[in-house]
């Protein structure tokens, strides 16, 4: 006879989520994401934004993150966010 578990405390209800392979219908081709160069989180984020939004990457096509310091990268991110309409969450 199996044990009947008496629940005394609520745990984390998160179900185990995941499938062997993501269904193709739930993914879309995004060129520019298969690169290993960006190492910092800021570099990754900017590279992802430019890959996901081709209209923006045209405007910033001369971007060379390797040649930028952190302050310049943050200014670039602010510019990209303005173009995409990504506003602060207030």
């Amino acid at each position: 006879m199996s044990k009947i578990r008496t629940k005394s405390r609520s745990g984390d209800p998160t179900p185990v989520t995941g499938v062997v392979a993501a269904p193709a219908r739930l993914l879309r081709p995004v060129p520019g994401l298969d690169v290993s160069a960006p190492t910092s989180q800021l570099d990754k984020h900017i590279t992802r934004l430019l890959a996901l939004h081709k209209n923006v990457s045209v405007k910033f096509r001369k971007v060379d993150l390797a040649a930028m310091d952190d302050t310049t990268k943050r200014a670039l991110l602010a510019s990209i966010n303005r173009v995409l309409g990504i506003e602060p969450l207030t």
Partner: protein
Amino acid sequence: MAEATADDFELLELPVRAWLTHCDSGKKHEAQIVELTAKVAKTKMGAAWWSNLGVSKSVREQEGDHHWDWAAEIGKHRNSLAVESVAVESPNGDLQAAMIYRVDGQSTLEPGAGAVFIDRLATAPRNRDWLVDSPAFRGGGTTLLSWAAYQSYALGLAGRVVVATLPSPRSIAFYKSAGFKAVKSEKDGMDVFELESAAALNKIKQTLKVK
């Protein structure tokens, strides 16, 4: 979850402060959302997740993720910016929940629109009240869902998050309660849920303490 300004996107830079609820006392404990590398997964998941639970091997093996090799999965995508892995770490260094997500997801409710796709999500076995008698923490999974929504927002994907799971009452209850909309199952037999933009923004604002 985190306490930071959102206007300069400080929240994108891990580690980010988060909160877990101790199941025994109900008190909030400060935690962190951290990057989950293959090395960290190998050390802090696997055996570290599945030992000392006080349940038999046969019971552990019934868990859907018992055979998952997180480190191998993360390693497989190390050269792809489409995939990212994060975890919630408690003050003692244990990982309480983990997630692998993709930024090249596709909305099922807004054709053509992008979304973050959750590839894998799980809370540590020690936190599962269906598995152990005294679960440790709760809140790790929902914290990571909010992180996914925030990432989606910050990447210009309007906060949309998509997830596919094998059908289960637990998944339906969890994702609906988290604000996701169930999308009709198709021929692959999976349940798909999507967090729409408006719900995502509400979720982010509720979870992130924006100054």
